[in-house]
């Protein structure tokens, strides 16, 4: 995927939604809308009871999904539906549900569903030995995060364990759309570039095409989460309206990643 987007001279667009939100059927439609709206990659979020790195928007959505009966098995089925819709999917999950599923079984079943990798926000490389083995065996990409507080030694360590792309959390904080993306992000990406050739994705706080364009000027992927959740929630015309709104946001963001604009150039 990154070979293609780089060939096009642009950043990739990565969209996140919690699986099963707001309900299982609508969720399939929303992921399809993200793919059709122009997301190069979708993050299928595993709902978790204690999502410590997520802000209230995404936490509430995860709780709604769990309350509606969503489970890890259904997540695998949802990934299959993304694949069937012509999209590419990675899973974003806290690690306890993966442990409960079984590390090897989870990797195997996700690979069978056509998944490409797994992002684990609360798994640091120090604890990830068996996980990386399972991912390797299944041919999947383990994707780890670095933060503005991550020093060079740990960036190198983390990048060395990562496949696919390195996830750079742009702010010290939890997920949630903000008016401004942290000023720490360009510096973090620059520090990562000195230490790895991996594509670098930037997330946490992006919600507009303009912000996407800003990040696309220095990153390989722009990751958008809370904004998709908010717009799906705000849609007042049921599943159809939510899908339309999600597709429209994806289109705006997809335009953004194709017109990279350094922050200073924006009036």
């Amino acid at each position: 995927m990154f070979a293609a987007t780089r060939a096009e001279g642009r950043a990739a667009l990565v969209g996140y939604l919690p699986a099963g939100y707001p309900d299982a059927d609508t969720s399939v439609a929303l992921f399809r809308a993200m793919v059709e709206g122009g997301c190069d990659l979708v993050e299928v979020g595993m709902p978790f009871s204690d999502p410590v790195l997520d802000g209230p928007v995404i936490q509430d959505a995860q709780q709604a999904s769990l309350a509606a009966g969503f489970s890890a098995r259904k997540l695998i089925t949802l990934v299959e539906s993304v694949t069937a819709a012509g999209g590419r999917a990675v899973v974003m999950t806290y690690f306890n549900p993966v442990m409960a599923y079984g590390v090897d079984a989870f990797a195997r079943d996700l690979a069978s569903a056509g998944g490409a990798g797994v992002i684990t926000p609360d798994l640091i490389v120090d604890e990830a030995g068996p996980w990386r083995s399972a991912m390797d065996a299944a041919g999947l990409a383990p994707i780890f995060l670095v933060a503005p507080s991550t020093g060079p030694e740990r960036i190198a360590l983390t990048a060395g364990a990562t496949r696919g792309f390195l996830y750079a959390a742009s702010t010290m904080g939890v997920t949630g759309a903000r008016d401004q993306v942290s000023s720490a992000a360009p510096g973090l990406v620059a520090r990562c570039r000195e230490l790895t050739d991996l594509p670098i994705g930037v997330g946490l706080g992006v919600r507009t095409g303009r912000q996407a364009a800003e990040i696309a000027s220095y990153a390989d992927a722009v990751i958008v989460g809370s904004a998709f959740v908010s717009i799906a929630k705000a849609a007042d015309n049921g599943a159809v309206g939510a899908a339309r709104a999600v597709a429209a946001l994806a289109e705006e963001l997809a335009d953004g990643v194709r017109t990279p604009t350094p922050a200073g150039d924006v009036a």
Partner: protein
Amino acid sequence: MPPRADGLPRHSDALAGTDHDPDERGYFGDFGGRWLPEALVGALDEVAEAYRKARIDPEFLAELDRLAETYAGRPSPLSDAARLTAEVGGARILLKREDLNHTGSHKINNVLGQALLAQRMGKTKVIAETGAGQHGVATATAAALLGLQCTVYMGRVDTERQALNVARMRLLGAEVVPVDNGSATLKDAINEAFRDWVTNVDHTFYLFGTVGGPHPFPVIVRDFQRIIGLEARVQVQRLTGRLPDAVAACVGGGSNAIGIFHAFLDDPDVRLVGLEAGGDGVETGRHASTISGGTVGVLHGARSFLLQNEDGQVAESHSISAGLDYPGVGPEHSHLADISRAEYRPITDTQAMDAFALLSRTEGIIPAIESAHAVAGGVALAREIGPGGIVLINVSGRGDKDMETALRWFGLGDDTAVDGTERATEAAEKGAVNAPDGPPAVRPSDFPAAPSGQDIQL
């Protein structure tokens, strides 16, 4: 430091390191580690390094001892519970009196140490989570003493059942933030504290309250609580000429239990018994008995036993005691259970409240409901061991904060004061705490309904 005139250990003696330290990644056997966002790794390394230096710095150790002895009230006494022993008719029961510490619980041992650490690190603010409010009150107290800003996260449910402690914290100058997420109890307060920390890590110290969380918190909190057992070991030997047969302590996260267990880890003849919150009974699914009724998982930074469903979603815990109402447990406890060095048993709400009344009536000590779980387990052990034995119970906190709950449980409200007193007396006299062959425990359902607005069963 010269030795104390009375020969008892000093708080600083507990920081000397033991043969039971975790490995360099923070593992006690298979449990512990760091299961949390990469963004916090640097902060944890910083805390670990500050602690590594502090625990061998004479200035830090002297200040810790000074505060422990002149501010917190260490050493805490050992009480010979003669009337309780007679009532139970089994082994001799001794009580380690952490309830007599400043702020009313063992929590002050840990917060003074960590607040001093925060100050040394140049942090201007501490954040904490609290369930029953004991840790929150202790943290707010230490912050006031040392001139640090303080924010305490507390589940909305707990702010309501522990309103008095909320008022205390605010009086001490702390900001109390009610947490509405999830089950609105301790686990959710911890989630919020982590969110705050990841956002404000530059100037903020997360003053962790129990022997859980990511490395190095389990070892730091443990070390600051080890003084309980170090003192008790000497005190029991002086009083009885030997070691106890069993040590009983309540286990939520497990800090008071680790604190008193640790001095006896290398004494294989001393049984270490952790009493978990059994709520309505482990078999009902409504409980907080993490080791007795949980499975291994990762939550709040550590691999440990956990209450969870088959999908790895963390289950809500249930206990009459807000301080034990937590689905996780410190990793060292999981390890001690794993290697069978300590035993863990559930105590139901009813058994705990019977013990609450029993200790009040026989010894004039109203324990925290957390500690009442230890009393219930300790009394059962005393019966099992029988006359000639010795059982040491850690009374980790006092019960002032729990009077509202006791009022409801025993029906001690205005209109029922006479009847309620009789009920509490009846509960104490039946005293059938967890006794396999004793008379049936008094249950709230045995009592007539309380006046409107006073549900007997919480």
